[in-house]
């Protein structure tokens, strides 16, 4: 398989493909075929995709090419002809929307998610759907009814999760853009472990209409790409208020790609004491310190800050998210759609419910439904759910305090954290230890709890057992502060000039 002319990688970045199609150097059909070939060649190993719409994607690309010929690529849209993939918890009115769960294994959505529709309206061609931990619950993509995806940097290792299929697909050069969803780190953590860029936008930036809900107050769709510029381009298309989602924000959507080249000199970047945990892998700690130095070299002002309630993040998250999940997933009862268990003559409705759900949900999902049901039960609600909401407010208060100027000085423009405490772990390594897996989210959950945007960018490598594994760092910004966030992220990416794909 050869590189397509002018592309830095077999599949090219989003911007490269867009430009090649715009200039007429490449057709959309060529771009889609290139992706399909790459998927064909690699996905037997990587297992990033749950479905590939090969025929439809080529037909869609042909139609886009015809429109480009008639109208010109720019009129067709910002992503005219570009192949993309969606995490399989985002609804399309074709194919299946499985959430990688037995209970929805055969489910066909009659409608398309707003985020997917925005990509389609911008001229993108959806080539397939990617693997995830069942209902986005997990940090390794091992909790998928279709089996785990594999990390392209070391296929013995997990790509992270829950958007592990999307991360692996982008890292392996199968598509230049895949959408993920991030409830507690599900975009940023796999992006970090796969050496790509993953953005969790501000809560409300991108419509959740058609994203199968895990925890409604935390879920957010976001782009996973190989460059920061690609992420900005995707955000330009994806963001904006949606009348079908009352939690989507009525705020102006800036041009995210406009200020990526602005120097970051003079920006204040907060480094919380909590970032330097002793639990961090030594390579993660080293890459983090290198990143701090690079930012300093670029002229950023590094400010020591404190996020005193960050330690409560995991506990609060694992109460709020399961509580909402237990309610959101209650609808999967086998009555209207999805898997329905067989019951015998004389067995009652309750048996139908419990058997359908027991057969349909995997262990991790059942665990979280039980957790969530418990914390919302009368008598326990105050002790758990209300306490978690209090912790959530305190965590948000921590960020408000560091971002806003006060008597003690000016606020910071961004907070720097590791994306994950460790590089990619082996498949099966943590599967029997849910708490260890939950701790994967330690640096990511706070952004969801506070509703602020976060991005993970590749920042270096760890050497583990002779393999080079990517390490990411994370930038968090105030709500709707994505422009500054991407500007700093772009500066970091340029300065590190890392390869964004594993060799071979």
């Amino acid at each position: 398989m050869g590189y397509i002319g002018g592309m830095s990688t077999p599949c090219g970045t989003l911007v490269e493909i867009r430009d090649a199609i715009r200039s007429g150097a490449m057709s959309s059909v060529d771009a889609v075929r290139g992706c399909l070939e790459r998927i064909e060649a690699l996905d037997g190993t990587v297992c990033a995709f749950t479905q590939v719409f090969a025929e439809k994607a080529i037909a869609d690309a042909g139609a886009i090419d015809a429109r480009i010929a008639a109208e010109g690529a720019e009129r067709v849209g910002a992503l005219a002809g570009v192949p993309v993939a969606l995490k399989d918890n985002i609804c399309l009115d074709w194919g299946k929307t499985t959430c990688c769960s037995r209970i929805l294994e055969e489910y066909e959505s009659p409608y398309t998610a707003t985020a997917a529709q925005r990509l389609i309206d911008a001229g993108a061609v959806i080539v397939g759907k990617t693997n995830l931990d069942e209902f986005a619950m997990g940090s390794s993509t091992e909790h998928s009814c279709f089996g785990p995806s594999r990390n392209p940097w070391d296929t013995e290792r997990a790509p992270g999760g829950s958007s592990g299929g999307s991360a692996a697909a982008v890292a392996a050069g199968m598509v230049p853009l895949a959408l993920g969803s991030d409830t507690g780190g599900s975009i940023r953590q796999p992006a970090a472990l796969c050496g790509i860029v993953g953005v969790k936008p501000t809560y409300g930036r991108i419509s959740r209409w058609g994203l199968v809900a895990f925890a409604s107050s935390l879920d957010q769709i976001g782009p996973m790409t190989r460059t920061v510029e690609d992420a900005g381009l995707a955000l330009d298309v994806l963001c904006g208020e949606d009348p079908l989602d009352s939690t989507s924000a009525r705020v102006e959507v800036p041009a995210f790609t406009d200020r990526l080249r602005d120097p970051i000199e003079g920006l204040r970047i907060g480094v919380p004491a909590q970032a330097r945990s002793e639990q961090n892998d030594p390579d993660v700690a080293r890459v983090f310190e290198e990143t701090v130095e690079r930012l300093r070299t670029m002229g950023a002002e590094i400010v020591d800050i404190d996020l005193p309630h960050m330690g409560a993040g995991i506990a609060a998250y694992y109460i709020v998210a399961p509580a909402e999940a237990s309610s959101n997933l209650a609808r999967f009862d086998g009555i209207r759609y999805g898997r329905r268990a067989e019951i015998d003559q004389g067995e009652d409705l309750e048996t139908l419910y419990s058997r359908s759900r027991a057969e349909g949900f995997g262990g991790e999902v059942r665990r979280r439904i039980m957790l969530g049901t418990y914390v919302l039960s009368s008598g326990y609600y105050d002790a758990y759910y209300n306490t978690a909401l209090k912790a959530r407010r305190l965590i948000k208060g921590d960020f408000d305090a560091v971002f806003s100027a006060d008597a003690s000085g000016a606020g910071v423009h961004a907070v720097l954290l590791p994306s994950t405490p460790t590089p990619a772990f082996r498949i099966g390594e943590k599967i029997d230890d849910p708490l260890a897996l939950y701790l994967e989210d330690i640096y990511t959950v706070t952004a969801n709890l506070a509703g602020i945007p976060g991005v993970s960018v590749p920042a270096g490598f760890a050497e583990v057992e002779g393999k080079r594994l990517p390490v990411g760092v994370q930038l968090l910004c105030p709500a709707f502060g994505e422009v500054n966030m991407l500007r700093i992220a772009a500066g970091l990416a340029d300065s590190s000039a890392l390869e964004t794909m594993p060799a071979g």
Partner: protein
Amino acid sequence: MVGLEIHVELATRSKMFTRVGSPACDEFDGAAPNTLIDPVVLGLPGALPVMNKAAVEMSMLVGLAMGCSIAPFTKWDRKSYYYPDLPKAYQISQYDLPLCFDGAFDLPLEDGSTKRIGIIRAHLEEDAGKLLHELPGGRKADFSIVDYNRAGTPLLEIVTAPDFGSADELVAFARTLRNVCRFLGVTEGVMKKGHMRFEPNINLVLTLDDGHEVKTPIVEIKNLNSFKALKGAVEYEQKHQAARWEEDGKVMGPGSKTTRGWNDAENKTFVQREKEDAHDYRYFPDPDLAPVVVDEAWVAEVRSRLPELPHERSARYQDECGLSAKESLALTEERDVCYFFEDISEAAIEAGAPTSAAWKQAANMVLQSGAKRANERGVLTNELGITATQVAGIIALRLGDEIGSSAADELFGMLCESDADAKTEAERHNLLQVRDEGAMQAWVDAALADPANAKVVEDLRGGKMSAIGRLIGAVMKASGGQADAKLIQAKIKETLGV
């Protein structure tokens, strides 16, 4: 002690949390099963609710009419339970912060007094679908059928204080509330369509021989959808709770509340569920919906839309228009009939009729000529085809003594089928009274000369005036109904010299 919960299906055009048509709205009434559905109604994966502002405003209208305060801040909560008619396995409702609260309504009673009924709260929620356990036509099935058309319809739940002393008071309140809701335009209030459903809570305070008081356990009777059932169920419980207590000795307390249903055929309640408190609905705030902030300007704007309510109109008809209590109540029973009545009165006054005569005549027309025909046809009086202007035309003819009362009624009937004005139609059918002296004299002379009337004429001459009716009838017949009865009588007397 009796309190009442009332569910009112609000007649918004779209459902509570989505744009699909709502069956409580006339436009979508009677839609085929499972046609008023979309991803939100069915609770499909990825679907999200968006609040219907019109439903919130309708609820505010009812709350304001019931004297409630409107919450400046309210929110949506999920009430969780599994049932096949509940698509998401939770109902979006309002738990601890209802939109309307702390109200009081002065219920007009038949004797002209009022009784104050406390309103604890009124909150908005979504209705469930309908589960059917037999096939259409009543055939047996070993499965159930579900129709989600009703699912997601906005439902206002009003909870009163236990202020009712009798089943009659309760029914009077229920009727008045329905009427108020109709005037507010928030529901058609058709009971058999389930637009309103009642759930009374009843217990008794028994005074024992030794002076001790005993409270019987509260019984909630579910889903009553007629006034007859409401009255029957409450009276049944009032009769039987004392006996139940004597049998089992159970008194009011935590966990003692039971839920009963109503058997319409046998006129009795039956146990549905013991121990209401065993349910844990796991309420928590719905993260898909923003809280609702209601500022004073919004309340003021909604309040400005409050129409004059039926009990207020009834009082005005009695105080200012000289109508009786009975007439006033009858005229305010149906919003559209009431508006029709007021339109007639106004048109008559505009055409020159004296105010009190106009109201009185309009009331007569609506309650007699109109009600009679409306009953026959099964429609409302305002739907008979006759316009307020046409009725005002009849009133003008009556007040000008140009038409008799029976001819006026006949003309009313004719105008239901005609677009002509009252006078034109009356002329076309010779309904106007004849005052022509010559013609009148000729009809009277002919009647007196008729041998068949000889005996009557003799009686009259002998001073037996009660016989005159027969002669008047004969003259009227000869005139084709156009003569004025009073004039005929005078002419007969004059001719006979009695």
